[in-house]
C-alpha cells in the first residue's frame, strides 16, 4: 500500500508541476498515469483528476496572485462564460453527439498549436489594438516579469471572441470532462492577446472554480476514493509550489515551447477519439 501511495504521490508532483507551469489541471497526466500505469479504474481516476485540477488551481493561485501575474478581473469576468458553459454542457449531455465535438475541438486545438508555433519566437504580444470593452471592464494590466527583469504593461483585445471561446471551453469540459485548462489558455493567448504568463496564471486561477462545480457530483457518486485522491492532492500541491517558482523565471518563449507539444498531444488524442467513437 505504501509503495502505491508513493508512486501516486510522485506522479502527482509531476502533474502539479506541469499543470502550474502551463495553466492546465494536470488531468492529462493524472488520468492516463493512474489508469495505464497503475491499472486504477477510470471511475476513480476521473475523481482523482478533478481533485488534481482544484489542487493545481488553488495551489498555484496563491503564488501567482501574490506576484500579481494573474489578471483577476479577466479571470472573474471570463468565469461567467465558463460556468454557464459548464451548465450548458451538463444539459447537453446525451443530447449531442460527442463524436463531432471531439473532432471539431481536436482540429481547433491542432490549428491553435500551429498558430502558437508561428509565434514561438515572440516573447510578448506585439500590437495593442484599443478595445473599448476591455477598457470599460478594466481588463488591461501589468505585471513584473522576473525573467525579463522589467514591468510588462499589456492591453487586452478580442473580448467577445475570448468570451465565446471560454463559453465553448466550459461546454466541452462539462460534456467531455477534458481540456478545461488548455482551451482557456488558448482563448486568452490567441483571442485576447494576453502575455503567455498571464494566460497560464489566469487559466490556473479559473480552472478550480469550474472543477469545484462538478466535484460535488463526483464526491456523492463515489468517484473520489480517498486512498487515491489524497496522495494526488498532496503531490499536486507540492508540484505546484515548485512549478510556480520556476514559471516566473522562465521566458514566455520557453513556456510556449513546452506548451506546443502538450497541445499537439491533446489535439491528436481528441481527433483519434472522435474517429474511434
Amino acid at each position, binding site marked *: 500500500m505504501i509503495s502505491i501511495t508513493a508512486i501516486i504521490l510522485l506522479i502527482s508532483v509531476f502533474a502539479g508541476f506541469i499543470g502550474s507551469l502551463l495553466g492546465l489541471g494536470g488531468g492529462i497526466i493524472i488520468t492516463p498515469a493512474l489508469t495505464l500505469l497503475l491499472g486504477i479504474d477510470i471511475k476513480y481516476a476521473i475523481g482523482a483528476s478533478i481533485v488534481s485540477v482544484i489542487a493545481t488551481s488553488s495551489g498555484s493561485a496563491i503564488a501567482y496572485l501574490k506576484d500579481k501575474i494573474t489578471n483577476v478581473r479577466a479571470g472573474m469576468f471570463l468565469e461567467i462564460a465558463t460556468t454557464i458553459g459548464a451548465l450548458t454542457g451538463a444539459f447537453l449531455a446525451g443530447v449531442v453527439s460527442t463524436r463531432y465535438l471531439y473532432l471539431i475541438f481536436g482540429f481547433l486545438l491542432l490549428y491553435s498549436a500551429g498558430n502558437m508555433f508561428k509565434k514561438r519566437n515572440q516573447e510578448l504580444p506585439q500590437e495593442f489594438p484599443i478595445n473599448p470593452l476591455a477598457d470599460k471592464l478594466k481588463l488591461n494590466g501589468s505585471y513584473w516579469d522576473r525573467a525579463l527583469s522589467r514591468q510588462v504593461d499589456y492591453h487586452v483585445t478580442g473580448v467577445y471572441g475570448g468570451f465565446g471561446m471560454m463559453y465553448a471551453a466550459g461546454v466541452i469540459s462539462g460534456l467531455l470532462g477534458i481540456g478545461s485548462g488548455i482551451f482557456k489558455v488558448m482563448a486568452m493567448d490567441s483571442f485576447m492577446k494576453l502575455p503567455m504568463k498571464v494566460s497560464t496564471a489566469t487559466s490556473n486561477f479559473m480552472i478550480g*472554480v469550474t472543477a469545484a462545480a462538478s466535484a460535488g457530483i463526483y464526491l456523492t457518486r463515489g468517484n473520489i476514493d480517498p486512498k487515491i485522491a489524497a496522495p494526488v492532492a498532496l503531490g499536486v500541491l507540492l508540484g505546484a509550489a515548485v512549478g510556480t517558482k520556476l514559471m516566473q523565471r522562465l521566458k514566455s518563449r520557453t513556456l510556449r515551447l513546452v506548451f506546443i507539444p502538450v497541445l499537439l498531444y491533446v489535439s491528436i488524442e481528441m481527433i483519434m477519439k472522435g474517429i474511434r467513437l
Partner: protein
Amino acid sequence: MSKNAVDKNGIEDTEIIISKTLRAGVALSGAITCLGLVLFLLTGNSGYPGESFPTSVFEILRGLGTLKPYAVMLSGLFLLILTPVLRVGVSIVTFLKEKDYMYAAITATVFIILIISFLMGKK
C-alpha cells in the same frame, strides 16, 4: 494611464485577500489530508469495511468525529474542493469593499451559477 493607477490599488488589495484565503484553505486542507493519510498508512485500517468509503458530507463528518482515517482524508479533500468556491465568495465581499460594483456583480453572478450547478449535482 493615471486612471489605471488608481484602479490598480484596489485590485491589489483584492488580490492579496484572495491569495490569503486560498493559502489558509490550502494549508488547512493539506494538513488534514496528510494527517488522514499518515493515520491510514500507519494503522493499515481505513475505518470502513472492505474497499468502501463515505460518499456524503454527513458521513464524512461523522467519521471525522471518531478519527476514521478515510473520513479524515476526505474531510481534507472536501475542504480543498471548497477553496475555489470560498475564493469567489470572498472576492464578492472584497470588490464591494473596494466599491467596485461592476466586479462585485460579475463575481456574484459567477457565485450564483456555481450554487445552481452544485444543486443540480445533488439530484
